[in-house]
């Protein structure tokens, strides 16, 4: 019986751009089971990014509840949120977000710099994560010496480093060609099926969304439709 890794209860987010009030999320309730593979779709301005930021503990909701792994995280302070990002969440971004002029290995090691774990086996762990995405032999290449697909694989290795419960991918294939895109999606699929890591992915490409087992559609800050395989 898989438990819910994420439970959202009536989640709302309001912010102000100058004088204008923007209701980015207007009461989202949804549960994601551990080991699920979910795609979030919707037009721009539908609230996908806001939802991703809240799911990723980069932002806090204005109201409602967010239970991550059974823990209410919507009211936590910045330091506790940073700790949760470090320990439970792996991020994969559209533009890779690797440190420039830094080796693949050092990029992958980055989360360990902010973990309280003992640092003796950092290199070993980073190498294992790089091997998991098939980049072990390129560990000493600098970011700018790697192709787009390779950079994204380094980013995935970095996301894997602290054995997260959850990987959040924001348009992970947005900057890649279709062949490289399916390589990346294959890695996600493997991680999801073999390591039982929960995958949540924002995309606007339906063929990429098709890799997921569930798809939800957002419009004007609300979930309007859910599809399951």
């Amino acid at each position, binding site marked *: 019986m898989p438990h819910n890794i994420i439970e959202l209860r009536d989640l709302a987010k309001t912010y102000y751009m100058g004088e204008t009030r923007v209701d980015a999320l207007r009461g989202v309730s949804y549960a994601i089971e551990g080991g699920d593979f979910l795609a979030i779709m919707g037009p721009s301005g539908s609230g996908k990014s806001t939802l991703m*930021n809240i799911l*990723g503990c*980069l*932002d806090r909701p204005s109201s409602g509840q967010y239970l991550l792994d059974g823990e209410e995280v919507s009211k936590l302070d*910045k*330091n506790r949120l*940073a*700790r949760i*990002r*470090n*320990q439970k969440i792996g*991020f994969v*971004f559209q533009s890779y*977000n*690797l*440190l*420039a*002029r830094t080796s693949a290995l050092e990029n992958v090691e*980055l*989360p360990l*710099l*902010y*973990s*309280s774990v*003992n*640092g003796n086996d950092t290199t070993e762990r980073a190498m294992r994560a790089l091997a998991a995405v098939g980049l072990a032999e390129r560990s000493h290449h600098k970011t700018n010496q790697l192709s787009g697909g390779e950079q994204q694989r380094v980013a995935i290795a*970095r996301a894997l480093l*602290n054995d997260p419960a959850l990987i959040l991918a924001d348009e992970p294939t947005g900057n890649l060609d279709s062949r490289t895109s399916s390589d990346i999606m294959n890695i996600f699929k493997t991680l999801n099926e073999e390591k039982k890591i929960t995958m949540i992915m924002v995309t606007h490409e339906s063929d990429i969304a098709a890799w997921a087992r569930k798809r939800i559609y957002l419009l004007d800050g609300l979930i309007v439709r859910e599809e399951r395989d």
Partner: protein
Amino acid sequence: MLKRSLMHGARTFRVALRALGRNKMRSFLTALGIIIGVGAVIAMVSIGEGAKRGIEDRFAAMGTNLLFVSPGSRNVRGVHSGWGSFQTLTADDAAAVAELPAVMYTSPSVSTRAQVVYGNKNWSTSIQGTGARYPEVRSWEIEIGSYFDDNQVRTAAKVCVLGADVKTNLFEDEDPVGKVIRIKKIPFKILGTLKRRGESAGFGSRDDMIAIPYTTSMRRLQGIDYISSIDVRAASAAQMPEAQQQIEDLLRVRHRIAPGAEDDFQVRNMSDIAETAAESTKIMTILLGSIASISLLVGGIGIMNIMLVSVTERIREIGIRMAVGARERDILLQFLTEAIVLSLIGGLIGIGFGIGSSKLLKKIEMFASINTVVSVESVMLAFFFAAAIGIFFGFYPARKASRLDPIEALRYE
């Protein structure tokens, strides 16, 4: 726990070094501000210390068992006149002081200025009338010839001994001993010359003078019957207070000063004078040091400037670090460490630069009279000041970095 925080510190330090290494030229130029600042502080303070050491050495050479008796202020029906305004000291006072048990030598002294002529050369200089024991009292050394003796003092002989400057100005390389010069048109036979003693602190050359018997000066040059001071060398440094007391008691009796009335003379000792001189060089050191520390302050502003630029350039990096779990404190520490590393590296190079330039200063002909002494205290002070500047000026940019919103930072182009 300690091991972990040490390891964390080492990691933060390594990250900072790597970040600074990515912009070597910029890091160097930023550190240069601190290098110059620390170097300037050390060099300037070393000049002050050198001057202080020079004065101390000079006083030590003269001996600390020197006392000076000078005429004092006199109270005439409630009206005070200034020090030295009364001519109360006489040659007999000096002779009486010389007999005291705690006194080794004394010499009366008078002084005036006069034009001195030798052949077609002339020179205006200070004429110091002294006793025969004056070289012993003041630690003067004779270069060639001899000083005048008691007999010549008693008879007010027309003899003189030249200071090094006067010798050079009137005789150049010629041997002056036995020659005759005219002081106020009176012929004086030269007995010898004094060794060069160098500049005194702020009072001009101490070699621009001629010594003659005080009796000669009083009777033949000045026409006075009082002396301007008595220089006394006590039997030993330990007997200084004793000597001072004996002199005061003796002079009160000789000058018939009623018990309770004020002295009409004053006795000062060398260590008081040395202390005053040391005090004035200390003020000079502080002044030089504070002017130099302004450049250190400017270097600190340079660090702040570059760190602000660096934070703006690395907003994206800060966002990434926050996304993978960096707390505000981690980001703050990282940028603060970079600023401190910059200022410490600058401080270390600056110490070398400061010590080097103060050594170099001694070697340059033009500054030959400047002595420099690099003290451990000034090096430590400059180094810790540099570190403090790194912390102070690094804090604002580091705080700015740590307060960034991770979402905005990740989106920043």
